[in-house]
């Protein structure tokens, strides 16, 4: 808890150092070959690149505390505005992936534990091992080949056909529900299918693994033996008492799962042309837009740190034994 702010400042210093150790001059690169020395100087002054490094670092840190991540050399807009505009697309996709991987992963994990060493358990083990070994960009391409190109039952890429619903929250599903725009809702949902499946697959594999291990641990405990002796129906024991204890372990892995999802989003968004933060980062890479890459790194890092903080607090609430 206490380390939240120092960790963020440390992260800022690291991203700043990375972006400023380069010998290449981003301004000269952007200004083009025909720019005069004065024009390059003027551009430098505009982006603050003419000041000494430590002054630049202090200015950057002060800017960040005021929500100013600098100006993107490529889009010529404030990076914080760019990132904010892209955020809903990534959040919508990530939320769907979390939802899908949990709703499928937890029951599968329970079944694998209850019917351990059955055909289902072996099949799920192969599936989870594959989920953690497959490159998500390749899986994305396989899905595109099969569902979008061969069977043509889902769109190939993008987030929606046409302009989308009236922007209120920026979440297309919510917005189209609010204004009762069913065409947009259908389009938004169909565009979500493939990116969600791709993103959710490794996360689901992780959830199945941890739920299975958690249920197996809980199933052998004394209270389960007691409940069985009391004659409680086994379904009730499993889905109510065992699952609750098993999920404690799974909840602590949410941080890990978010890590998988954020890392996956960069490549998945690139393949599906999904206009979120990940695609923004990839575009920034292609355009050598250093400020934008650093802004993206900082924002995802901060988000990740906050998620882990919340998980720590949640863990203490669910399982009081870990406090102290």
């Amino acid at each position, binding site marked *: 808890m206490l*380390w939240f702010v*120092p*960790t963020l400042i*440390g*992260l800022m210093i*690291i*991203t700043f150092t*990375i*972006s400023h*150790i*380069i010998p*290449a001059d981003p301004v000269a690169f952007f200004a083009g070959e025909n720019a005069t020395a004065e024009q390059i100087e003027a551009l430098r002054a505009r982006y603050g690149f003419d000041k000494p490094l430590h002054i630049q670092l202090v200015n950057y840190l002060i800017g960040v505390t005021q929500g100013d991540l600098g100006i993107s050399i490529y889009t010529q807009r404030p990076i914080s505005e760019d990132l904010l505009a892209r955020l809903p697309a990534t959040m919508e996709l990530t939320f769907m992936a979390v939802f899908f991987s949990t709703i499928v992963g937890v029951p599968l994990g329970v079944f694998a*534990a209850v019917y*351990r*060493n059955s055909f289902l358990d072996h099949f799920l083990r192969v599936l989870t*091992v*594959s989920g*953690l*070994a*497959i*490159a*998500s*960009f*390749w899986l994305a*391409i*396989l899905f*595109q*080949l099969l569902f979008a*190109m*061969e069977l043509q039952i889902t769109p190939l890429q993008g987030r929606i056909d046409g302009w989308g619903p009236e922007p209120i929250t920026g979440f297309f599903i919510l917005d189209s529900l609010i204004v009762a725009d069913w065409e947009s809702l259908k389009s938004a949902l169909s565009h979500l299918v493939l990116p969600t499946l791709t993103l959710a697959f490794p996360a689901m594999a992780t959830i199945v693994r941890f739920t*299975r*291990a958690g249920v*197996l*641990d809980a*199933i*052998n405990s004394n209270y389960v033996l007691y409940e069985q002796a009391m004659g409680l129906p086994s379904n009730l024991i499993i889905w109510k008492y065992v699952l609750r204890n098993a999920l404690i372990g799974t909840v602590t892995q949410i941080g890990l799962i978010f*890590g998988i999802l*954020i*890392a996956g989003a*960069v*490549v998945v968004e*690139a*393949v599906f042309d999904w206009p979120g933060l990940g695609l923004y*980062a*990839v575009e920034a*890479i*292609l355009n*050598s837009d*250093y400020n934008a*890459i*650093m802004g*993206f*790194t900082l924002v*995802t*890092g901060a988000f*990740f*740190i906050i998620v*882990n903080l919340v998980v720590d607090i949640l863990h203490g609430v669910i399982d009081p034994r870990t406090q102290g």
Partner: protein
Amino acid sequence: MFESAKFIISKLAKDRTSLVGACLIAGLILIALFAPLLAPYPQDVTEFHPPERLLGPSMSHFFGTDRMGSDIFSRMLFGARITIAIAVIAIGVSVLIGVPIGLIAGYNKNWISDGLMRVSDIFLAVPQIILAIAIAQTLGPSIENVILALSATYWPFWARLVYAETRSALTETYVEASIALGASPFRVMVFHVLPNISSSIIVRTTIGMGGTILTAAALGFLGLGPPAPSPEWGRTIAESREFLPEAWWYATAPGVAIFLVVMGFNLFGDGLRDILDPRTRRSHDG
């Protein structure tokens, strides 16, 4: 030492999944070593044959040809060299940085050890691929820079692990005894603590290989890996995208290759962990 190695090998040989993993890894190493002998067209790593571009799989081109008319099978074999070089060097550097830092931070209890652990916490606070993207982008696309980016982002895993293991080893009697006998801190760390925590380091290193290969391939896919005409697997998948769905074979070979190799390290690592690190044993049979 020799006895324990024999024990581990005999245990591993009985576990079917780790045996599969070991075979996959051995296959990768053999392919990387003998790529020039195994490849039907070794010159196709750099040579182009535009008239033969985008041919489907056949007896003369097992996995078809790519956009330049080069034999994909031959290029994949040479791609194994890049994959193994990146993974082995990046992980090796991470271990060489992380293990001493973890040992020093774990053995001492002062501001230096706090500082070292805080720095590694900052690196662990961000998903590895994000920092690796930032570093690889700044330095420019090349094999060396991918290795640098991965080493710079992966070392904290070993620092954290070794730190925790060293702290718990310090409470053991054998460490206390050697300190009481007047052994220097260096001697205690290197000759007494390190051998006793080596099994956790080995397990972490094996499992880390799979993740590193996936991240390296993702960097290649995003155009941050070695530049064209490198036969790097991730880059090949990226190249194939504009020729889909007609050239379906183009992305298949590198995709399957990455999958099998990562699977090999994951299975082997799981098996090793079961034998060497009983505390975290996966619940096999309840």
